[in-house]
């Protein structure tokens, strides 16, 4: 039974029969009665009498059976329809989809959704229409319609036409009644008993009420259903929409005191750590996707700044690790480049990498912030643009064009600088900005030629919801990437476990509200070489780390015990060509104190013990005795350049397979036969066509 096919005036008139029943009888009636056919009286048990007394069903006492007469059939169908969809008890998306499936044909759904932005471009189904109906704007637009033309436009957009009316006047009256009705219903997020609404009306108004109800049902603004507790017929707007519409304005967030707080230019520090590692030795990348090789990544991750557990999720995701993020950023800034090494891609420091490491922490951070500050773009790029590292915005607008009146840079700066001083709860900040200070919502909603966003991105959502989410996401992205990640905001954990943020000097500098900022220490860090071979960094000194890492083993991170000189690490440097003087000299330059004599002595000893050799693959002819070797030497003569290594062994020069065969042939001709013990000797030259006379020669 479709609710839209119901003659509501008469149904409303029959409702008192239902109200006369208590809950058990109502339940028995719904479960037991059929709209056609007879039903045995026993099915109703103790409720039989009450059901009969209600007049909803006829009773044959002789045969003890009930049936629903024509007059009541529609009423019963309406109750059964309302019972199927507990709109007010479980108003979820699935309920709404089922409701649309039961009460709207496909055509009606298409008509209903035709007015949805982008709906005309694609197929509208109950699944795609349901989210739109569930959002506040669906009913909100009706409530906001200021005059009759707006009401009519609203109705037309939903394909509603007063079917029995030939005049627009009745349509307008019905729409006005519907609007008044909806405005009353806004006070009841969980619906209101139909009984109570009817009690407000005189008899002459019931018909108008029924028309308004029908119009509301037909436009999916108003819903009816039975309440679970007592099976009372209810009417109301979609519950989630009502809650959204009646939500109080988001308050300006006020400052809170954090339980713990953390300030670090994480992105810059990660870049520094990774670059220091790369400067010591290039880092291997995966050939397929260019990510840092897993083994190398694990090692580097152990050196990154440790983040509080409640904040770590801000800097890493399943898709992009901190190491890969730092590698990407280093590449953006021209500090590393990819080069092949041993056939595999590796990250190498560029000529700018070393000098960048030698900067103080503040200077390094300024090198990242200043380009952002200097950039002149007032709005981010659009959806086909690439995000540049030096763009103020770490995001793009997901549209083809940017609305001309949009000034996102100003809006963004205002949002952050306008926040109260102190730690602001992030969610409250984003919520407030998205709702109350949203530059997208402030744009003209219609008549703007370039204000349209692709339907496949809009997803048939309420545009207001989409725009709230869009601005919220942009603010959040800027906060994390441009502020927190660059030390422009401290983050804190609040008493209730949520996160808060507070702008730092660096953040105000980035936003143009300050001319300078401080970060880290400008002093060159003390580095101490200990008699137990530990190298302790008394501060951050990434350039020194890069130098020291070449001949010592990383055991920690600065500040603290960062490296240890071991025999293996010194030998590794020696293998790469370092001398003891170079290593000790580098330590002297790095260390603020004299190098302990035992350390110098051991390094010298280890390097002095280094010996070099060469690994070659030889082909040799081993002879059984010296006499054979003499014959071999004579047969080979000077042409083959064979070298006699020992009295019985000759080394053959590296050559082709045919040259080798030539040697074998020459020896064979002289009566010296070689046993084939190498697989290389199986590589015979390609066969050529033999002439008959050649074969005869070979056989001989």
């Amino acid at each position, binding site marked *: 039974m479709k609710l839209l096919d119901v003659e509501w005036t008469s149904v409303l008139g029959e409702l008192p029969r239902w109200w006369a029943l208590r809950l058990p009888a109502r339940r028995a009636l719904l479960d037991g009665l059929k709209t056609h056919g007879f039903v045995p009286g026993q099915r109703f048990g103790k409720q039989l009498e009450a059901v009969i007394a209600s007049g909803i069903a006829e009773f044959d006492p002789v045969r003890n059976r009930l049936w629903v007469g024509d007059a009541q059939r529609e009423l019963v169908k309406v109750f059964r329809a309302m019972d199927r969809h507990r709109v007010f008890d479980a108003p979820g998306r699935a309920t709404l989809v089922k409701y649309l499936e039961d009460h709207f044909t496909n055509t009606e759904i298409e008509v209903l959704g035709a007015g949805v932005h982008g709906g005309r471009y694609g197929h509208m189904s109950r699944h795609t229409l349901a989210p739109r109906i569930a959002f506040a704007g669906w009913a909100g637009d009706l409530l906001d319609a200021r005059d009759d033309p707006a009401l009519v436009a609203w109705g037309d957009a939903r394909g509603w036409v007063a079917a029995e009316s030939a005049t627009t006047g009745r349509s307008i009256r019905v729409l006005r009644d519907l609007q008044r009705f909806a405005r009353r219903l806004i006070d009841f997020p969980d619906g209101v008993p139909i009984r109570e609404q009817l009690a407000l009306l005189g008899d002459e108004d019931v018909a108008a009420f029924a028309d308004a109800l029908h119009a509301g049902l037909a436009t999916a603004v108003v819903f009816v259903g039975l309440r679970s507790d007592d099976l009372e017929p209810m009417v109301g707007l979609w519950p989630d929409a009502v809650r959204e519409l009646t939500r109080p304005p988001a308050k300006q967030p006020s400052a809170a005191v954090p339980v713990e707080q953390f300030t670090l230019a994480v992105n810059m520090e990660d870049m520094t750590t990774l670059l220091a590692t790369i400067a010591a030795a290039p880092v291997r990348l995966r050939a397929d996707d260019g990510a840092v090789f897993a083994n190398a990544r694990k090692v580097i991750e152990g050196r990154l700044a440790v983040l509080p557990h409640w904040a770590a999720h801000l800097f890493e995701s399943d898709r992009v690790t901190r190491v890969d993020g730092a590698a990407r950023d280093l590449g953006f800034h021209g500090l590393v480049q990819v080069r092949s090494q041993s056939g595999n891609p590796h990250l190498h420091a560029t000529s700018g990498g070393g000098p960048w490491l030698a900067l103080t922490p503040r200077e390094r951070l300024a090198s990242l912030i200043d380009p952002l500050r200097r950039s002149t773009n007032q709005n981010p790029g659009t959806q086909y643009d690439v995000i540049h590292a030096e763009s103020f915005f770490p995001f793009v607008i997901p549209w083809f064009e940017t609305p001309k009146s949009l000034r996102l840079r100003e809006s963004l700066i205002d949002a952050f600088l306008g926040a109260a001083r102190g730690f602001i709860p992030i969610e409250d900040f984003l919520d407030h900005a998205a709702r109350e200070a949203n530059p997208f919502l402030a744009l003209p909603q219609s008549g703007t030629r370039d204000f349209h966003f692709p339907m496949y991105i809009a997803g048939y959502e309420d545009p207001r919801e989409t725009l709230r989410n869009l601005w919220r996401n942009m603010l959040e992205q800027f906060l994390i990437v441009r502020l927190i990640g660059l030390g422009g905001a401290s983050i804190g954990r609040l008493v209730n476990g949520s996160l808060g943020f507070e702008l730092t000097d660096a953040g105000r500098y980035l936003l143009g509200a300050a001319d300078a900022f401080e970060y880290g220490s400008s002093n060159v860090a003390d580095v101490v070489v200990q008699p137990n071979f530990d190298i302790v960094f*008394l501060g951050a000194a990434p350039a020194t780390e890069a130098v020291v890492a070449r001949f010592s083993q990383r055991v920690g991170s600065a500040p*603290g015990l960062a490296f240890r000189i071991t*025999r293996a690490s010194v030998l590794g440097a020696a293998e790469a060509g370092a001398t003891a003087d170079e290593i000790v000299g580098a330590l002297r330059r790095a260390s603020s104190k004299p190098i302990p004599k035992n350390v110098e002595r051991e390094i010298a000893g280890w390097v002095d013990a280094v010996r070099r050799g060469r690994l070659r693959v030889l082909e040799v002819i081993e002879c059984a005795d010296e006499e054979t070797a003499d014959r071999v030497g004579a047969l080979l003569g000077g042409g083959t350049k064979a070298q006699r290594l020992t009295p019985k062994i000759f080394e053959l020069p590296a050559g082709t397979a045919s040259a080798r065969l030539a040697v074998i042939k020459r020896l064979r001709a002289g009566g010296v036969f070689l046993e084939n013990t190498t697989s290389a000797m199986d590589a015979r030259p390609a066969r050529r066509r033999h002439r008959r006379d050649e074969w005869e020669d070979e056989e001989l």
Partner: protein
Amino acid sequence: MSENPLIIQSDLTVLVDVSSPRYANARDALARFAELVKSPEHIHTYRISPLSVWNACAAGVAVGDIVETLVDYARYPMPVHVATQVRDFADRFGRVRIERDESDPAARHLLVRTNDSLLAEELSRGRQLAPLLADRVSPTVFRINHADRGRIKQALVKAGFPAEDIAGYAAGESLDIALRPCTRSGAPFALREYQRDAATAFHARGSERGGSGVIVLPCGAGKTVVGMEVMATLHASTLILTTSVTAVRQWIAELLDKTTLTEDSIGEYSAHSKNVCPVTVATYQILTHRARAGGEFTHLELFDRRDWGLIVYDEVHLLPAPVFQITATLQARRRLGLTATLVREDGREDDVFALIGPKKADVPWKVLERQGWIATAVCTEVRVPLAGEQRMAYAVAEQRNKFRVASENRAKTQVVRDILARHAGEPALVIGMYVEQLHEIARDIGAPLITGTTAQGRRDDLYERFRSGALPALVVSKVANFAIDLPDASLAIQVSGTFGSRQEEAQRLGRILRPKQGDNQAHFYSVVTCDTVEQEFALKRQLFLCEQGYEYEIADAHELSQAGPVVER
């Protein structure tokens, strides 16, 4: 902030810059709740652990003080979770107490009280604790058998909730003992201030919070004297456990020399003698002796032979496992541990904490060195090439034998002579592991040799002659490692050693770190065959000694032979 000496790392290690103007104060504050791990020249490393924080809490240090100290002296902002972890460690202390059961005058039972019922519930379900905490008196209180006192404390430490034991002690048999103002030999005798402080910290004015714990003092700082002072404070019969017969006799000699005890009130309990007296000194070895593998430890009943008021565990870091077990049943006796280091090779520091008691006093050796109570030591590694005729033997030796071949390098004998010549007139110990080598050296330098087979009487005689200066040098094997007091050995030459054990090095240095007449400087030489496995293992020794803060030099043998006598600094 840059003047501050502490760099606090996220793994709870703390690096301390000794060049900072605030270093001394920071060290004193830090040592209350962190263990010194290593102290090479410029940067010392401490570690904060649950045990170190519990030791601090047991000594009355508040967690707020700990965090404030770290914040106050930190050079950089402390990692965010360090304070949280320290608070967590400290929060666990004191949540469980062991108290007397006032309703049980026979004291067969004690009470374990928690500060909340949820914790009581959690503990009562622990696998090791459940059978011991079966008798629940209330949501937060359990009644336990007094014999389980030690086991419960062990299990609670392992569960992360160390118990504060205020159940008190048995008084033990009374003993009339006092320290003498002059030794028997007539020299004036008085406690040093740090010794008195250590004994006072242990005793805690006789309250239940005192009476069990460990005193950590460097070798040569006079831990024996601290033990005697505690005995004199408690006036109770005492069982003293130590590491060797020589050490036993050393204790007895000290007790006779410096206290009012007489010979008839002190007994030796060892392989040689089984006297049980009001003060009995025994070896760990005799207590852990059994006739056959898997048999009974028949001498453990010594613990029950008298009503001991105090048990002293000398070199407590060497306490053998069976003694731990019996100690678990002696929790009603006062227990004093004496050691130079809480670090055990077997990692059972938490058992020391649970069964002996928390650390009561800890004086860094650098402090004592500066005050002149122990000698400064210069460590020198002398590298000597392998003697020609032994090179082939080394080259063809199996890997496991190479160390011995290198250690028994005959060229070392000349090096020993050269070192002795550099330090002519200084009493010297030559220490080694291989008896044949030691025989040869002893013959070469004309010094007596003490090995494991040397009779105790002869050993005592040689030690006495060495002390008196009649013998300028002694050659000793491993037996001299532990607990012998040779106050005037200012030179030690190690010709061979086991594989770089930390304990070895600490003990060998301990032999010479006694206050010396004159300039108070001692020298420790290791003679190492270069380009062999011995040099590789010597690197471990080098690292250890540097980490202990000793000055470490490396010299070639030929440099030594050309150098003149040592000029003391």
